[in-house]
């Protein structure tokens, strides 16, 4: 396919001499057309190591991962894309993480499953452009037509003569060439790296202890800090006594600190010491009196009671409506009206939050497991009145993120501590801090109403009630949450004529935020459970029922595949089969869950089949891994853990009461990927939402009992 090139000469960095080192070719694309001028200005100011591609004159190729690597595979898939069109071997390249720099890289937030879908087109074009410039440089050198040359394995080869030059030998000349107006991108069938299940390049360093996570980074003279924060999620300090803490060997300093949580602050007392252990011991010796004035001492049961009252009495803010579902529901004979509840969830990444900050007079440098280095740069620049270019944000590997490490509280706090301390410091959250302090995925309740006539859906009406991520601390909402319909399949709108969604605002001062798959994780449970209930009401098979309403070709193929791989039609009487299909970040995933009753009376999940349609993709094995992991995370959230509040305090502490799925809890997951060339959709999150509704549907199929509240205890079904 031919692509018109938008890369102008000035967006390429000039070949430039680095101190004693080789000449390099570096270049980048502006974040978007509007920012082109700004980007060009930066480019003119000189060579920057952290461009996407760098080729040294000795042939060394360095590719940049501009997104976070938190398990989802950007460290593999971003280079895999670049290397394809650049024509270099993955075994010959070096990968580095970008620093936060939205001017250069565009958005760097690793969220919304956006790394590939948000970057792949420009990465392909960028890489092909570099390749063409190298080919032209070689052709000029040999004085042959460029059409007689091709690139392979980091070399340009002249086909007729077999002459060959390494990219490194061509860098100086290539850097002076005007980027071509058009570049030819490969067809899918020509890919050598893309769409191949290649081994991940970050595995070797994750099996011998070499990978540097945030917690592993060390700076000369760095101290360690642990913070005792107000346990009521926000609030102040009345007084504290550091006498005993300061007597703990290794403790250097104790002082009050304030962390910004959205627009509010949370007070804490920080203990700085020469080891993590000493800081933790010092913290235990602190005596702190908290001030909770004005804080709502909330209880979980009250939250869900309030949701239910709202759903029954309040029409909410309209989010989407077509036809007249209310009028039809009022007259219908055959209808259902049910409420679903989903719990608050902690992210509980294996690597507890941590951040190293070094505040200096003229710059601030940060290292850590950071999902959004560009946001951190902007946030720290704002809050500490430091020019953006003087805020250097370095990403390490992340020991999990799931949305939590895209939040800006822990990075802000670390910088505040370093500023007060006057030196580099690593702030370490304990597991208890991580579990007890949020922000959490909000627990949301839903009301579903629907009518059936002659086996057909005549009306659907959904309302959601719960905290909105964007508004937890803001003024009351006057517009519906834009994510009210997230997770619901768009093709349904074409065939279900009367349907409405509304959002009933429920404000509560608990910090909440996105959690893997965001609203689809809760919406998906309600909406797809409801579709299964409607199928039962219509007396129809759940897959056939969906086939009727999802008429587009991609959905039809997905459903066919689900039926085929799971043996849906040949399922036996004593087995429970459940189904759900959700859309999340432009990817549709259908899952079928099979359960059976064990001789000991307990229900066992025998198998999960997942079929994913994510359009264009990079690495099928990473996709499979992401879906396998998504199912495990969904299993935990559906059947094992939830965050609950008592008198404003979080009741859970650590993995002994915020339990996690273990190896023996996990069913086999079989993942199938649909082959097509549609635009790339997300991969890291869309595998999560369909699991809970498919599981509860399977349990209904086996037991006749419909579960509408998560989490539920699988041992008690």
């Amino acid at each position, binding site marked *: 396919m031919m692509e018109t090139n938008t890369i102008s000469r000035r967006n390429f960095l000039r070949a430039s001499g680095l101190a004693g080192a080789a000449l390099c070719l570096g270049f980048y694309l502006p974040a978007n057309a509007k920012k082109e001028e700004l980007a060009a200005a930066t480019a003119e100011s000189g060579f920057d190591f952290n461009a996407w591609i760098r080729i040294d004159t000795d042939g060394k190729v360095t590719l940049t991962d501009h997104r976070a690597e*938190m398990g989802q595979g950007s460290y593999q898939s971003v280079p895999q894309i670049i290397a394809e069109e650049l024509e270099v071997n993955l075994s010959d390249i070096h990968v580095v993480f970008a620093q936060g720099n939205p001017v250069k890289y565009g958005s760097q937030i690793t969220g919304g499953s956006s790394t590939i879908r948000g970057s792949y087109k420009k990465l392909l074009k960028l890489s092909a452009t570099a390749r063409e410039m190298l080919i032209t440089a070689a052709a000029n050198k040999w004085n042959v037509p460029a059409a007689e040359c091709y690139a392979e394995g980091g070399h340009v080869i002249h086909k007729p003569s077999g002459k060959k030059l390494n990219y490194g030998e061509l860098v100086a000349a290539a850097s002076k060439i005007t980027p071509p107006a058009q570049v030819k991108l490969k067809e899918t069938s020509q890919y050598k790296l893309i769409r191949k299940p290649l081994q991940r390049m970050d595995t070797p360093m994750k099996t011998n*202890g070499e990978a540097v*996570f945030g917690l592993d980074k060390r700076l000369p003279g760095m101290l360690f800090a642990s913070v005792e924060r107000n346990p009521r999620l926000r609030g102040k300090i009345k007084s504290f006594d550091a006498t005993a803490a300061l007597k703990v060997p290794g403790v250097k300093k104790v002082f009050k600190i304030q962390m910004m949580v959205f627009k509010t602050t949370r007070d804490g007392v920080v203990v700085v010491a020469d080891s*993590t252990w000493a800081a933790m011991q010092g913290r235990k010796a602190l005596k702190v009196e908290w001030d909770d004035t004005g804080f709502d001492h909330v209880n979980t049961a009250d939250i869900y009671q309030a949701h239910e009252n709202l759903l029954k009495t309040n029409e909410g803010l309209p989010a989407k409506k077509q036809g007249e579902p209310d009028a039809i529901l009022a007259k219908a004979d055959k209808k259902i009206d049910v409420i679903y509840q989903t719990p608050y969830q902690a992210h509980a990444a294996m690597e507890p939050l941590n951040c190293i900050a070094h505040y200096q007079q003229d710059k601030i440098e940060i290292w850590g497991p950071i999902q959004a280095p560009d946001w951190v740069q902007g946030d720290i620049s704002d809050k500490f009145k430091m020019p953006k270019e003087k805020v250097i944000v370095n990403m390490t590997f992340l020991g999990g993120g799931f949305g939590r490490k895209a939040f800006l509280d822990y990075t802000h706090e670390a910088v505040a501590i370093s500023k007060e301390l006057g030196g580099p410091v690593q702030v370490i959250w304990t597991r208890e801090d991580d579990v007890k302090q949020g922000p959490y995925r909000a627990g949301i309740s839903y009301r579903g109403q629907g009518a059936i006539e002659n086996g057909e859906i005549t009306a659907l009406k959904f309302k959601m009630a719960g905290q909105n991520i964007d508004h937890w601390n803001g003024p009351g909402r006057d517009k519906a949450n834009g994510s009210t319909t997230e997770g619901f399949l768009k093709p349904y709108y074409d065939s279900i004529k009367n349907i409405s969604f509304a959002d009933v605002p429920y404000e509560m001062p608990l910090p909440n935020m996105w959690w893997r798959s965001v609203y689809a994780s809760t919406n998906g449970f309600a909406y797809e459970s409801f579709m299964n209930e409607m199928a039962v009401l219509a007396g129809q098979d759940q897959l056939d029922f969906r086939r009727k309403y999802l008429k587009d070709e991609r959905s039809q193929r997905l459903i066919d595949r689900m039926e085929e791989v799971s043996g849906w039609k040949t399922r036996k009487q004593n087995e429970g089969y459940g189904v759900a299909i959700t859309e999340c970040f432009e990817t549709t995933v259908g899952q079928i869950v099979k359960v059976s009753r064990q001789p000991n009376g307990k229900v066992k999940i025998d198998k999960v089949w997942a079929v994913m349609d994510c359009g264009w993709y990079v690495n099928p094995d990473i996709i499979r891994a992401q879906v396998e992991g998504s199912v495990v995370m969904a299993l935990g959230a559906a059947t094992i853990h939830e965050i609950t509040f008592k008198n404003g305090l979080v009741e859970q502490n650590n993995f002994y009461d915020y339990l996690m799925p*273990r*190896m023996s809890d996990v069913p086999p997951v079989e993942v199938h990927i649909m082959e097509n060339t549609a635009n790339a959709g997300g991969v890291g999150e869309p595998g999560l939402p369909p699991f809970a509704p498919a599981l509860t549907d399977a349990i209904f199929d086996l037991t006749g009992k419909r579960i509408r509240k998560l989490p539920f205890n699988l041992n008690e079904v």
Partner: protein
Amino acid sequence: MITLTVNGQKHDIDADPNMPLLWAIRDIIGLTGTKFGCGAAQCGACTVHLNGEAVRSCVTKLSRAAGQKIVTIEGLSLNNDHPLQKAWNEMNVPQCGYCQSGQLMSAAVLLRENPNPTDQDIDDAMSGNICRCGTYQRIRAAIHKAAAMQMEGAKI
């Protein structure tokens, strides 16, 4: 002064005998492959070998580890060539990778004591290790693969 022998190397360290081994390994000796996950022996991210046994270093006091033989992930093999490490690479086991040091150290003891474990044996031996990314299915398969490699190697 406490003497620790880590991966065959002796370290004399000046630390509180109540300090958990984890923090001495990470903050004093400077080997950061062993991870902090929970501090309460719940997740297994900090698993090391103490005289060949898998222990949770976050709750193992220095006084207990003193003078004993400790092996961390950095000492599991010289060149990332333990059968488990090879199987982990071949099967793309890690996602974020944070728990994998502990997973490997637990699995290494299992394979030494039980060269041909069943699924049930693996589930039992690995139940103390949490993986939030949910790589369990691959860990189980990779342990089987490593067991096969190990037996193949023994025949040669």
